[in-house]
C-alpha cells in the first residue's frame, strides 16, 4: 500500500467508478427524456403509442461502464502490483539475502501471494462498497437482498479476474531477466486479450456491420436472425472461439449476466444465472489456477531471479 503507483491506480479506479455510474445515470435520463418527447409528439399527432416502451430503471445496469473500466484499468493496476512485487526484489537484489534465512522459496512466494491477494480483496471490497454507497446514498435507490448478493458475487469474480493479471505479471517478471521487458510484454498481452480480441469478436458480428444493426435494416427479429445464422456454423464458431480465448470476455459475460446488463438475465434468479454461466466461472478459475501454479513453479525454479540486474 506504500507504493504510489498502486495507490495512484486505485484512486484513478475509484474516481472512474463514480464518473461511469454518473454517466450511466445521465444516459438513462436522456433515454427517459427521449421517450417522453416521442410520446408527447405521437399524442399530439393523434398517433397510437402502444408500440412505445417506457425505459425501466435497473440500478445494477448502471455498472456497465464500471465493469469495463475494471476490465481495463483494474487489470493494469493488478499488473503494476504483480510487476512491482517481483521487480522490487530483483532491483534491490534482496532475494539472496532473504534466502540465507531458513525459509523455502515456495513458502516465501506463497506468503507474497497471500499478502497481495488480501490487498486485491480489499481493493475489490472498497470498489464494490463505493458502488453500493453511490446507488443507495447518492441515488436514493433501495437494493434488494438478491441484488446485493449479485453485487458481492460480481466482486468475487472481479477479485479472480484481477488476480489472474497479477499472477501473469509476476510470472513474466520472474521469468525474464530484465523487469522492464517483462512489464512491456505484460502490457502487450494485456492489450491483446483485454482490448483487441473482444474487439475482433465484436466487429465480426454480422449484426454490427451497419449502423442500427444489419438484421434491423432487413426488418428481421432476433429469433429469426438466429435461425438464419445457424446456416453459418463455421463462421459463428470462429467468432465465438476468438472471444473465448479472452479471459476478459469470460469475466464480462459472467458479470454482465449477474448484474442484468445483458437483458436476457435481468431479474432472473441467481441460481439460474450461475448455472447458465458455469462455463465462464470455470474458465476464470482455470486461468487463476494455471497462472498461480505456473508462477509458483517458476519462482521455485527460476535462476534468473538470482542474476544481478544492472
Amino acid at each position, binding site marked *: 500500500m506504500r507504493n504510489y*503507483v498502486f495507490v*495512484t*491506480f486505485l484512486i*484513478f479506479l475509484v474516481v*472512474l467508478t463514480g*464518473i*461511469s455510474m454518473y*454517466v450511466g445515470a*445521465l*444516459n438513462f*435520463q*436522456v*433515454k427517459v*427524456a*427521449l421517450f417522453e418527447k416521442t410520446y408527447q409528439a405521437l399524442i399530439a399527432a393523434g398517433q397510437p403509442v402502444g408500440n412505445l416502451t417506457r425505459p425501466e430503471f435497473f440500478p445494477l445496469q448502471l455498472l456497465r*461502464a464500471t465493469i*469495463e*473500466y475494471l476490465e*481495463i*484499468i483494474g487489470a*493494469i493496476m493488478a499488473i*503494476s502490483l504483480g*510487476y*512491482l512485487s517481483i*521487480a*522490487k526484489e*530483483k*532491483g534491490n537484489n534482496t532475494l539472496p539475502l532473504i534466502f540465507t534465512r531458513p525459509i523455502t522459496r515456495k513458502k516465501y512466494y506463497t506468503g507474497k501471494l497471500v499478502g497481495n491477494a488480501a490487498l486485491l480483496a480489499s481493493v475489490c471490497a472498497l470498489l464494490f462498497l463505493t458502488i453500493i454507497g453511490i446507488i443507495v446514498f447518492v441515488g436514493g435507490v433501495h437494493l434488494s437482498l438478491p441484488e446485493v448478493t449479485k453485487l458481492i458475487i460480481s466482486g468475487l469474480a472481479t477479485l479472480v479476474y484481477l488476480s489472474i493479471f497479477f499472477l501473469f505479471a509476476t510470472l513474466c517478471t520472474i521469468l525474464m531477466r530484465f*523487469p*522492464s*521487458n517483462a*512489464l*512491456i510484454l505484460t*502490457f*502487450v498481452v494485456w*492489450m491483446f486479450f483485454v*482490448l*483487441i480480441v473482444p*474487439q*475482433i469478436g*465484436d*466487429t*465480426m458480428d*454480422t449484426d*454490427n*456491420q*451497419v*449502423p*442500427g444493426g*444489419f438484421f434491423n*435494416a*432487413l*426488418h*428481421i427479429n432476433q429469433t429469426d436472425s438466429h*435461425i*438464419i*445464422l445457424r*446456416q*453459418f456454423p463455421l*463462421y459463428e464458431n470462429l467468432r465465438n472461439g476468438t472471444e473465448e480465448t479472452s479471459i476478459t470476455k469470460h469475466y464480462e459475460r459472467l458479470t454482465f449476466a449477474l448484474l442484468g446488463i445483458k437483458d436476457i438475465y435481468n431479474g432472473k434468479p441467481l441460481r439460474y444465472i450461475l448455472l447458465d454461466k458455469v462455463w465462464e466461472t470455470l474458465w476464470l478459475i482455470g486461468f487463476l489456477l494455471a497462472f498461480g501454479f505456473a508462477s509458483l513453479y517458476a519462482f521455485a525454479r527460476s535462476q534468473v531471479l538470482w542474476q544481478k540486474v544492472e
Partner: protein
Amino acid sequence: MKNTNPMGNTFTIASAEIRALFREKTMYSITGVFLLMTAASSFIGWSTFTTADAVYRASVVYLHAQGVSTVPENPLHSVPALASFDNLIVYILLIGALLAVIIGHRSFMRERRSGILQVLFVRPVPKRSFVLGKILGLGLVLFSIMSMTAIISIASSFFLPLQHITIGNVGHALVFFLFSFLYMLFFALCGLLFAIVSKSESLALFIPICLWVGITFVLPELATGLTPTALLNPVTILQLPPLTGFFSTAQHILFPISLGWHYTTISGELLGSSFSTNLSIGQVFSGHWIEMTTLCVSILTLGLLSATALRRFDPRGDYVNE
C-alpha cells in the same frame, strides 16, 4: 572546445537513435504484432463482409419462404470502399499508441540505464541538439512503421476488396496514415517526457499509459456517454445518443483535449466511415481545424516540455529505480 555544428550533432543522435531502436527485440516484437494486426484487420474485414453478404442472401431466401414479398436492399451496399480500414483506426488507437509510448520511453530510459548520458554530456553536445535528435529519430522510426502499415493495408485492400477502390480512396488512405503518424508521435513524446522526468522506470511507463487510457476512454465517455467498449467499435460509435444537458456541456468543455475522440472522428471521415457524404480531404480538415490545431499544439508543447526537462536533467548521480 566549442561545438560548431549543432545540426550535425542532431543528425548523429537521430541516426544513433534509429539504429538503437531497430536493434531492440522488444521493439521488433511489438512492431511485429502491430503489422500482423494490420494485415489481419484487412482479412477480418473481408471475411466478415463476404459472410455478411452471404447472410443477406440467406435472409432473402428465408424471408421469401416466410411469405415476405418485398425484401429491403442489401444494407452492405452502403458500406464505404475503405471500410476494411475501420479496424485499423482502433488498432492505431490501441496498439499504435502503446507502441509509440514504449518507443518514446525506451528511447531515453535506455540511455539512463546504461549511464551513457554522464559520458555524453561531458562532450560538447548541446542538450537542445540531443533532444531534437531524439525526437527526429523517434519521428523517423514511427514514420517508417506507419509506411509499412500503409503498404500492407493498401495492398491488401486491392487483393481483398470490399468495394471497388479508386485512386481517390488511396489518397484518402495515405492522408489517414499521415494523420495517424502525428497521433502516434504525440504518444511517443509522452513516453519520452516521462522517461526524462521520472525517477522510477515503471512510473515513467505507467503515467503515459494512464494518460492514454484517459484520452482514449475517459474523455470520450464524458463527452459522448458511450461506454469504453462501444468506443472501440467503428460502427457503434456512429450511434451516438442525443447530446443534451450534461453531455452537451461536457463536450464543450472537454472538446479541445479529447484527442482520442478527434482521432476517431477525423479518421472516420477521411476513410468515409461516417456512412454520410463523401468528404474531400480539404473539407475534412477545414471542418476539424480546431482539432488539428490542438493535436499539433500538443505535439509542440510536449517537444518543448521534453527539451525543458532535459535542460534541468542532471546526469551526475542519476539513478533509476524500478
